[in-house]
Every structure is written in structure tokens, then in C-alpha cells.
């Protein structure tokens, strides 16, 4: 499997994603936002950062980048797309995922470790994950509070589209574990087919024991294992 790691002006997790993917043996290429070509079997990664400075609204300008039309087509064709942090915000702005990401409840930027409890174990990104524990993924954002209307929240829950909720190391989803005030403790969600994942935490920062943890690799391994499986 190869990955296409998108780079918008202001993206800063591109190198971290390339590094983390290499830890599980996935080769990647960086794709500048003005490019348009994506290979059908590529894992498309929208990394974290402040695309275009996020001066208007996070992700609001990036969604108009030339590469985004290709991302749209890639997703429609069943290709794998993961948006992390700013990448999640862009996917929401592009309507590939429902809901929006608002300013953290604390009104402050937060950089910290969080535990994310898988709620879905069937998508290409979450297959085989253990729902009885939290996976340690660091967060680093000022606008990560997931907000959606009640109907959307209900639909996400009932259709198994919540990928992760903020929780504890032993897998409990508690209000205290919610770092930003996200509705329903939502840390990440999937599209209907499960081939598009958006999440605020940074799995690519938990990719080797020297950094303290490597829980993030579970997501990439799941994606690797899904190669050839149609969604």
C-alpha cells in the first residue's frame, strides 16, 4: 500500500504522517494542494496544520484547493481517505463528513495525550481494534469540539459511524475524559461507507516507543489489512 500525504500551505503534520506510515511499512508521497492526481489504491492522508493560516475558518479555504476535487472522487470510488486534525476540519468543510469543529470549550489550544475508545471495529481504519480500552492518541488543536445537530448525532451513533470517543485508558467514555467539549465525546467519525475517517487526535504522533507510545499504528495496520477489501 502507498499513501498520498496532502500538503496545503500551512500543513505541518505531513512529515509526521510520512514518518508514522513508514513505521508500519507504508511508503508515501507528498502531494501539493495544486496537484490533482491520486492513484485509486492510495491511502489519502489530509494531515494536521493551519491550512492557509486558518484565518477565515479552519479548513474553509483548503476545501477549494484543486486537489480536493480528486479527494472527493477518490472517496466516491471507495478509496481510503483519512483526515487528521486540520484534515478532519477540511473534510467537514468539504461535506465529505457531517458536522463542524468549533472552538474548544476551554477557549484555549490544547496539546495533551488523550485516550480514544473505538466505537466502530468494522471500518478499514478500525478493524480489529479493542473496544474495551482507550488508545493513546495525542491531541493538538484549538478548534476540535465536534458539533452536529441531534439528528446527525443520532444517525452517527445508530449507523455505527462514530469511530472514536474520548475516554479513559480502560475504555470508559466519561465527561472528564473529554478534552474539548465535543458532543457525545466524539473524537472521530466515518462516512457512510466507512472509507473516509476524520479525527481530531493525531495517531501519527503515537508511532514509536521512543516517543512514549505507538497506539496510533493500529489505525495504519488496519488500513493495511483492508487492502483489496471492497467497501
Amino acid at each position, binding site marked *: 500500500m502507498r499513501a498520498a500525504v496532502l500538503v496545503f*500551505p*500551512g500543513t*505541518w*503534520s505531513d*512529515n*509526521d504522517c510520512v*514518518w*508514522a506510515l513508514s513505521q508500519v511499512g507504508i511508503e508515501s508521497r507528498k502531494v501539493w494542494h495544486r496537484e490533482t492526481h491520486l492513484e485509486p489504491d492510495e491511502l489519502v492522508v489530509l494531515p*494536521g*496544520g*493551519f491550512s*492557509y*493560516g*486558518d*484565518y477565515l475558518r479552519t479548513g474553509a479555504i483548503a476545501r477549494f484547493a484543486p486537489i480536493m476535487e480528486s479527494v472527493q472522487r477518490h472517496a466516491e470510488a471507495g478509496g481510503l481517505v483519512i483526515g487528521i486534525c486540520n484534515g478532519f476540519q477540511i473534510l467537514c468543510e468539504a461535506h465529505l463528513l457531517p458536522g463542524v469543529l468549533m472552538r474548544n470549550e476551554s477557549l*484555549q*489550544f*490544547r*496539546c*495533551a495525550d488523550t485516550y480514544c475508545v473505538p466505537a466502530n471495529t468494522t471500518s478499514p481504519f478500525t478493524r480489529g481494534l479493542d473496544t474495551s480500552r482507550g488508545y493513546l492518541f*495525542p491531541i*493538538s488543536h*484549538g478548534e476540535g469540539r465536534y458539533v452536529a445537530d441531534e439528528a446527525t448525532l443520532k444517525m452517527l451513533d445508530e449507523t455505527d459511524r462514530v469511530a472514536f470517543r474520548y475516554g479513559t485508558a480502560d475504555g470508559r467514555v466519561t465527561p472528564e475524559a473529554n478534552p474539548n467539549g465535543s458532543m457525545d465525546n466524539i473524537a472521530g467519525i466515518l462516512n457512510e461507507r466507512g472509507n473516509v475517517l476524520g479525527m481530531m487526535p*493525531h495517531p*501519527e*504522533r503515537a*508511532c514509536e516507543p*521512543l*516517543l512514549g507510545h505507538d497506539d496510533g499504528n493500529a489505525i495504519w495496520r488496519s488500513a493495511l489489512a483492508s487492502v483489496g477489501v471492497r467497501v
Partner: protein
Amino acid sequence: MPVDDRALQQVAMSREEYRRLVEMLDREPTEVELGMTGALWSEHCGYKHSRPLFHYFPTTGPFVLTKVGEENAGAIDLGDGWVCVFKMESHNHPSALEPYEGAATGVGGILRDIFAMGMRPVALLDSLRFGPLSDRNNRRLFRGVVAGIGGYGNCVGVPTVGGEVQMDASYSGNPLVNAMALGIGRREHLLSAAARGVGNPLVLVGADTGRDGIHGATFASVELSEGSDEHRPAVQVGNPFMEKLLMEACCELAEQHGDWIEGLQDLGAAGLTSASVEAANRAGTGIDIDISLVPRRAQGMNAYEVMLSESQERMLVIPKIEHLDDVLALFRRWELHADVIGHVTGDQLATIRDGDTVVARMPVAIFGDPPQYPPAGERPASLDRLQAIDPGAQPDVADSSAALLRLLGSENIASRRWIFRQYDHMVQNNTIIRPGGDAAVVRVRGTSKGVAVSTDCNGRFLALDPRTGAAMAVAEAARNVVATGATPAALTDCLNFGNPEKPDVAYQLEEAIIGLSEAARVLNTPVISGNASLYNETPTGAIIPTPGIGMVGVIEDVARHLTIAPRPGDLVVLLGGPVAQPASTLAGSEYQHVVHETLGGRPSIDLDLEARVQRLVLDAHARGLLSAAHDLADGGLAVAVAEMCIAAGHGIAAGALDAGARLDAALFGEAPSRFLVAVRDADAAAAVATLASAVGVPSTSLGRIEGDAIALGPIAVSLAVARGEWETGLERALAEG
């Protein structure tokens, strides 16, 4: 040009300096020439009061590659072709007026110093000082500065891995905001900031030039006063998004196309003036700039304003003429403006044109030859009075448990988590030791190496004895680095002082530089870069002397780093001095400040002992004897023990202590040159004791990490309560009002 006092005042130039300029030019300067000279002869750019003291600094050592003053930052050799460049710089006065933008642009400025050398910035640290947080304005400044650092640093994708903050009344209204950055890269990618090659173009890249920040360098070189608000336009506004693009473009240029260019120089204080003149001075060339070619963001700017604008996020590139198109195309790809604004000349003159009109033309050498004022220091009588105070005259501590809890929750000791959780400290995936330990450790990607870095300075020790206090700052910074298992390699300094034209400040400045230099020499950590911020005064007086030290050390095998967290069952050993200490070690301590609300006495340090203790810790670690290490600093032994326990999540059983005659000094005294180390078992403790006695270093086994209470001599507090005080102290202080 007939010059009046107002014109001179505007450029902070004295009548005497003006006469010197006229003599050197052999004519009156033009308005533009006067403005340019004033900026470059200001303390901020010209170091006219501090440079005469730089000869004290040790500047060479086994790690040193680029010496102080040669380039925008110093460089050390990490081995195997890897290089680390680093520097610390102040942004105090802008932050006093506009805390968010002042701090933000401080971060931006120091980053440009790093990537101007071709190195990718890998870490940021911030050394901050404020007045007491009981004051509403100090809280406002604190919040604004932290938000500004986060706002800029988080956006550019460089982790903020450390720093420190201290509150003292003398910083009220004159906060210190010192930003430090480190860059790492391959030696062959190191760039020079020299305007070499006659005929090569000068290319200005990045933001358009506006009226912001004009006279910023001058403003940094005068005291803050009631009228300082008028200087608000001298504070620049940052655009971290632009900085990120500049950084990526410049790093790509250095890493892949270093042969396309002769030089790369950032625009900082005094903007285009200092960038172009410094680049020419380094190369022994001249420059010819047409300001009509400089893209503006404001209409009607004259040559004076264009040359002195401190608009942020700009770089000056000196490409080889044959690669001009390649360089312009590279910047265009990063969606940055890049314009040719002039060229390198061989006449050693700085020629500034506005279209067809020459508005300034004078020898580059004059700009680079500011007047120098060897400080005329005079030991203030107040120092004798302060030193004569006997900390032992105060009653000894009655309730040591309560005193420990009070210190743990005090604004100078409480956890800094409230700050660093607002900073992205993990981006780039190299942060091995995060903020909150003794020093941060960053991995050198692609090698087994790591770099440890810490900033330190306790100005109160300098207030009592500037020479000793500065030496203690260097020693503490080095100890913090050693506590991670790294060998201290070199340092950068940020000399924050009051007005050097006053004899007592001049005395402090010279004494501090002597003390700093002595310690740097003994500890083998030369000064490779730095910055002076003088005139830190408000109408109520000068700040306490604060030469911030940024210390960098090297770990050969970063997987073998040490943290401050011991494991349950470990034995904790005190190295470097006995538990029992004389009352004099309370001089300048946080205990003296919090409990007795005084400052007095005379601190002392034995640099030879300091060096032996540091070598001992590194030696013991090399032998695999240590499982954790922590330096003793603010709050002394008791606070250090508590911090280790909190980090471990376990208590300690160290009830039996030989505390000597003064319990307060034993528990809370701040005698330097001491570490706590954790070892696995009694055999390891014995081995450490043997090593220590062989080099004449005292060692005392304190007790075992176990249980859920801190039992240290007469202290008995639950770990949960201690942690609660420590974790919430800063938030509580900031919450008031």
C-alpha cells in the same frame, strides 16, 4: 542637514554620537542616513554598552562550529555531520505594550535567525518573567504572552518544548519575553548571511513592507515610561502562516539548492537596514538598493520608512546571478513574493536610492562601528545592605509540611502545565522529554542522538550578588541538561538588565558577565550566541538583573535519556551536598520570598564542586546505575523530592534525616550543585556512593520510593494533596479577578 534634538531623540542618538557620525562621514548625514545609523548604533543592534564586556566570554570549545557574532546564531557540532544552531532573543518592550503580538513576533524573529542559517527549526523555548500574579495587569500580560507564543508557535509547526517563568515584583510593567530556538541539520547545509559576489542580486522575500515597527530597535533601547504607549506603532504584527511558508522555502533552498545562493539573512530589528548592512559587512562588500522596488503594504511610504520598517516575515536572499530565476521560481512555488531590490557592489558603500534619487550613500563600515561605552560601574551601597541580612535571624520553620504545600502551590514553583498544554510540544515527532521535566530532549531524526535544552536564571540570586548569581544560572542550566543524561555543550544568553548608563546597573552587567563567563569556562560550555536587552526599567526602577541562559547538551544514545520520574522501589540519593545546610542557603530562595517575604543574604557556589557533581552524574548514568535524576533548585530539597514523587506517582519513605541546626535550610535552602538520583537497589546506591567519594562529592541515601505519602524528615503529606497544590497553583493565581 541641520539636526535638532527631536530628530536625534527619535533615533535615540546623543549629540556626541551625532558629532562622531559627522566626523566619520566628513559631512552632515541625510535624514535616511541618520535614521539608519541611529538604528544600527542603538543598543539593540549595536550593543554599544554590552560589547565592551564580551571579551570575558569563553567562545571556543570542542563542540563549537560557528562562534558568537559570526552569523545569526551559533552552531555546535553534534558529530557524524550533524549540526545544531541555537540562539535566544528578547522581545520585552513590545510585549509590555502588546503582549500577544510582542510575544508572537518574538517567536517569529528567533525562528528566522535559525532558518537563515539553513537549519530546520526543531524546538522553541520561552523564558518569561512577570510581576506578581496578584496584580491584574501582570495577569493580563501573562495570559497575553502565553497566547501569543502559542498562537504563533502552534501555527508554524515547531514544537515549544520548554522554558521557564518566574514572577518578581521588579518585572511589574516590564515583563521579559525571551524566545529561544534550535535548528538541526547537516553541516553541509549551513548557510552564511553574507552578501558575497559583486553583481549578485538582493532579493527580498515574504511579506510586503509596511509602516509597522519603525523605530522598534530604538524603542527597545530606551526605558519604558508613561509615554511608552505612543510607541505602540513600533510593535509589529505577526503572520505565522507567512512564516511557515518562508521557513519551508528557505529550508528547501538550503537542503536541496544551497549552491544557488551566496547568502540568506533574516530581517529583524532595524529591518532592511540591518539585514543589508550586516550581510555586506560580513562579506566586505557594498549594497545598492532601490527602495522603489520594495513591495509595500502602505501607500506613500518614504525611503526612511521603507529602510526602517520592521514588518515581519521577510528574508533577504543573495542568489548567485546565474541562479536568480531558479530562486525566484522556488519562492513562487511556495506562493511567496520575491523581488529583486538591488545588488551587491564592490565599493563597500551602502547606497540607497528611491528611483533615480540617491537618499543615502555611506560606508558600510560606519554602520558596523557603533560607539562603545565600557560600563562605568559602581557597586551600589544597597548591595552591602542586602548581603548583610542574615537569613538565620528569622525563626526556623515550625510546620514544615504546611510550608512544603505552600511552596508547591506558589506561583514560582507550581506546575507549568497551564502554560505548556497551550503549546504544541509534540509536532515533528521528535520530542522525547516533554515540558515539565528538568530539560527538554529532542531526538535528532536519522541518528541515535538527542539534544537536551534548558533555560534558566534566578534573578534574585543576581540581585544579591550579580557575579555569583550569574554563575549559578549557568550551573543550574547545565544541571538541568545533565539530569537528562546529556553532556552540556554550549550556551546562548539573553542579557536582560536595566539602564546601563546608570552606575549600579553597569556594575551588575559587568559582574554578571564575569560570573557567567567563569561558570561557562569551568563547565566547558562556551557562549555561542546571545542578545542584550538593556533599559528594562519602568518609572519604579530597574528589573533585577536577569541574564537568561539557554543551555544545550548532547546525548549520544537518546534512548538512554533520564527523566525525573523514579520507579517504585527505587532508592533516592542526594548528591553534591549534605542534607544539613547553613541558613545562608536560604538567601534568595523561594522559601525566603514566600514565607518571610524578604530578600537578603549572600548566595554562594563552588564551581569546581559543580563540575565534579555534574561529571559524577553523567559517569554514574554511563555505568547504568541511575533510573532517574532531578536537579535541586527552587524550593530546595523538599520541593525536588516532592516533584520526583509526583512524577513517579508514588510517595517516599525518607523519614530519618540528619537535618542539622536549621530545618528550613535543610528542607528549603537552595544550595546549588546538588542532584537527586534514583537507583534500583542498595548495590547500585553503594556503587554511586563509591563513585561520589572518589571525586570528593558528598552523597546521602534518603529513602525509598513507595506508598502514597511524602515522608521527608518531619514532613508528612499525602501525595494526592501535594499533587493537588502543585497542579492547581498557577491556575489559582491566574484566576483571581
